């Protein structure tokens, strides 16, 4: 049971369902990016079931809050949250990455309701989210724009063009969430191209920065649902996460960036995800 003031039980319930369902999609299609799905799922469940204003029956409602999945490869997380939010029926999920499926390896807004823009190449979602936030500010609309990037994705220079612009414009209606799982596809971010101190970098670009445990849905909810009015700056949430969170053999393993489980692993994951 949930009630309006404290949606955290609902968020946890949805996140659990998303993890189970996303892993099944990867298992059945033999494709996907489960590690990055699982680090992002608690953040996305919090947004869709505790923070954002939207109407799945009207995906083009002009006043909707927007969520942009800049780390477009994490479609296991995106498609399960959109499905759970009611944008499309569950029987679409088994088509994941099958020929002519609307559930591409990377999201396409022209196929799938609820997808705000096409992503996949890294460093694209953040500039688009910036444009949406500018449009909202120009029109005096109250909607908020949330964009989720990976942490390795922050190595793309286009993000820093966007960060500079958002800071300059003091866009308080824009929230950037960085899924800070500290791993990219082959190794740790710090041994590849170091990002720390990421918080100082965003502060220097004119952002208000918050650090949070990206699996603590109560903290995420408190932080993300707070009104941005009067802050006078865009918000950067550095969500410290665990790649593969929730399945013991996947946690903190770079190899599960695009790993696919065998039957025994799938069964074990289903036992753990309860």
């Amino acid at each position, binding site marked *: 049971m949930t009630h309006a003031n404290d949606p955290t039980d609902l968020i946890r319930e949805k996140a659990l369902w998303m993890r189970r369902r996303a892993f099944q999609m990867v298992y059945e299609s033999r494709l996907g990016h489960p590690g990055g799905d699982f680090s992002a799922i608690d953040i996305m469940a919090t947004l869709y079931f505790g923070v954002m204003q939207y109407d799945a029956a009207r995906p083009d409602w002009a006043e909707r809050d927007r969520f942009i999945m800049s780390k477009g490869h994490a479609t296991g997380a995106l498609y399960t949250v959109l499905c759970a939010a009611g944008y499309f029926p569950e029987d679409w999920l088994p088509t994941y990455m099958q020929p002519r499926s609307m559930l591409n390896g990377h999201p396409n807004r022209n196929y799938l309701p609820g997808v705000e823009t096409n992503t996949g190449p890294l460093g*694209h979602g953040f500039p*688009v989210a910036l444009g949406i936030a500018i449009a909202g500010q120009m029109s005096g609309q109250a909607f908020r724009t949330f964009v989720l990037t990976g942490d390795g994705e922050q190595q793309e220079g286009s993000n820093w063009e966007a960060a500079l612009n958002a800071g300059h414009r003091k866009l308080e209606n824009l929230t950037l969430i960085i899924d800070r799982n500290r791993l990219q596809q082959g190794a740790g971010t710090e041994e590849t191209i170091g990002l720390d101190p990421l918080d100082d970098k965003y502060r220097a670009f004119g952002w208000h920065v918050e650090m949070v445990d990206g699996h603590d849905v109560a903290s995420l909810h408190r932080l993300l649902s707070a009104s941005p009015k009067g802050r006078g700056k865009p918000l950067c949430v550095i969500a410290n996460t665990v790649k593969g969170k929730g399945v013991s053999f996947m946690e903190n393993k770079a190899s599960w960036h695009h790993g696919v489980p065998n039957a025994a692993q799938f069964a074990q994951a289903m036992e753990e995800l309860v």
Partner: protein
Amino acid sequence: MAAPTQTAAGLSDCRNAWAKTLADLARADDRIVAVVNDSVGSSKLDAFAKEFPDRLINVGIAEQVMVGVSAGLANGGKVPFVSAASCFLTGRALEQVKADIAYANFNVKLVGQSSGVAYGELGATHHSIEDFAWLRPLTNLIVIAPADAWETAEAVKWAAGHDGPVYLRLSRMPVPDLVVENRVFRPGKAELLQQGSDVTLIGAGTTSHIALAAAQVLAAKGVSARVLNMATINPLDDAAVLAAADETRAIVTVEEASVRGGLGGAVAELITANRPVPLERVGFPGFVVTGSADWLFAEYGLTADNIAARAIAGLERAKR
């Protein structure tokens, strides 16, 4: 402030037509916004910036975010016109143009300024002779190169009303007005500038004027040339090209662009698969040396005399 639209010599800088038309459209439709990479002056948008200071978004010298932001503005209900030098707009931000605009199919208008070799002396970094080749294959993206001030204004108006991505390839080079009776702008359709029966000359943008001049040279030699102004490069007017292949014996394409993959490439793809006739492609072979735009046109054969000579060469090949 009304900028003069014609120079003393009767030639127009089409940027004036672009800027005036955009301001006219913006007065009638508050969804229209301009996005620039610090390119206000080179886009002739100073007056627009004064009249609509809140509707001109200057992202700074940052082309990737410029194009990404425009996709977001479209998501938020705006109709953005992104105006920047073609070389940077289409080259630096090519992946954003592909993924955020064409593939995502957002209602964004990309306006390439100073296209081709307009920045002649500045060198190949500042030339945009590859844009036809790398934008033409992008699904959903309509590519238009207007030839004169009237066509520029009409293309901007049409783009504003079209729900989908458009690339307008504008020039800063002074051009005369094309003289066409009862002229109507038809996107996707070739404009017949002159009827002819021996050879067809196809131009786009600045080169339509040279093609017309070449037809005069050919007429003096007794050769009847058809001249088409192919403003829309993508999608190509297949019917007009196939009719030219049927009804004349050779085709010459003339473009202020690389001869690889642009207008000439599009015509070659079409006719080789359907009605093979000799095709001569006039344009630039690749990176060009430094010189003024006028000098480069002469040096690389974008001249009436050379086009006429290439037409005659094509007709000779047709006899074999």
